[in-house]
């Protein structure tokens, strides 16, 4: 029970203690924050930047930025969610600074249609493909490598939407494109990835 008489679940109370500690400059509070959240933040940065040094620099930027804006954090979101957004911002700043490296169209991976709008070729059903943990790991490795194959202008929106769960509007703002363009890029990226994965999972004819 807090002084205001409101009951908070354990993790919220823990976060409030940590936040209070950070705001009051309690020794080791910042280190506790870093040790608790750096792993997840690094993973978020790494899957977008694909380079360990860049990812760790982005995490460092994110923590410093979080410290500067502690006053604006009202505690309504979880600390981890707030830090995740700050990490995405730090990553986007780095991506903008280095420019889009690999901007290519994906036409060869999109489905083809005949003149009357039906699929040009029959679509195959996929099998499960990962019955054992070893097969599952192998499939995940392949999928990961196919995601990395996608050009930046499609890979990044795909990750922001499906992994980081940003809205299309947030992706549009982060990438400085229209909301429709953001939607289309996510859709095309999924279609291209589907096409790249298909040889591993399509039922033989």
């Amino acid at each position, binding site marked *: 029970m807090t002084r205001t008489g409101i009951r908070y679940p354990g993790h919220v109370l823990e976060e409030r203690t940590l936040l209070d500690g950070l705001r009051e400059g309690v020794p080791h509070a*910042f*280190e506790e924050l*870093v*040790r608790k959240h*750096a*792993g*997840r933040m*690094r*993973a*978020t940065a*790494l*899957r977008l930047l694909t380079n360990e040094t860049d990812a*760790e620099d982005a*995490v*460092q930027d994110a*923590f*410093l930025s979080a*410290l500067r804006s502690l006053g604006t954090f009202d505690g309504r979101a979880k600390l981890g969610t707030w830090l995740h957004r700050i990490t995405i911002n730090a990553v986007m700043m780095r991506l903008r600074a280095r420019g889009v490296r690999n901007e290519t169209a994906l036409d060869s991976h999109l*489905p083809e*249609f*005949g*003149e*009357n*709008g*039906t*699929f*040009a*070729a*029959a*679509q*195959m*059903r*996929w099998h499960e493909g990962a019955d054992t943990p070893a097969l599952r*790991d192998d*499939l*995940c*490795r392949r*999928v*990961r490598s196919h*995601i990395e194959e996608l050009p930046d202008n499609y890979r990044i929106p*795909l*990750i922001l939407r*499906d*992994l980081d769960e940003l809205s299309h509007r947030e992706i549009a703002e982060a990438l400085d494109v229209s909301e429709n363009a953001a*939607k289309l890029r*996510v*859709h095309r990226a*999924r*279609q291209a*990835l*589907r096409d790249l*994965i*298909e040889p591993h*999972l*399509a039922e033989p004819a």
Partner: protein
Amino acid sequence: MNCPEFRDKTHEHLRGNLPRGEEVELKAHAEECSECSDFTSTCSELTCKEFVDFLHSFIDGELAKERATVFDRHLSVCPDCTAYLESYRRTMELSVLAMTDLSVSEKIPEELVLAVLNAQKQGE
């Protein structure tokens, strides 16, 4: 021609793969069978390209109710779009699984913790 044959041949016809003479048989069957006649109407109210172009909006529940019903009806007659939708959904699941696996296995490098703490001290 029986009804399953009619459906298979209609798909081939829509793909442009049906030999010319067989169109007449299709038409004759549709005139006699009201179910297959409805099937033909459903096939022509939405093309596969339209279905695929707006698939993401369909999945996100962003289509107007009437439009979503047309999409559902199209799925009920189109094995190609059904297979495509399933594989598209599976792709989304697999990409989350593949990328989440990576983050779970990540350990926090001690150097990163020290670098962040040093950067903070320098900034004070």
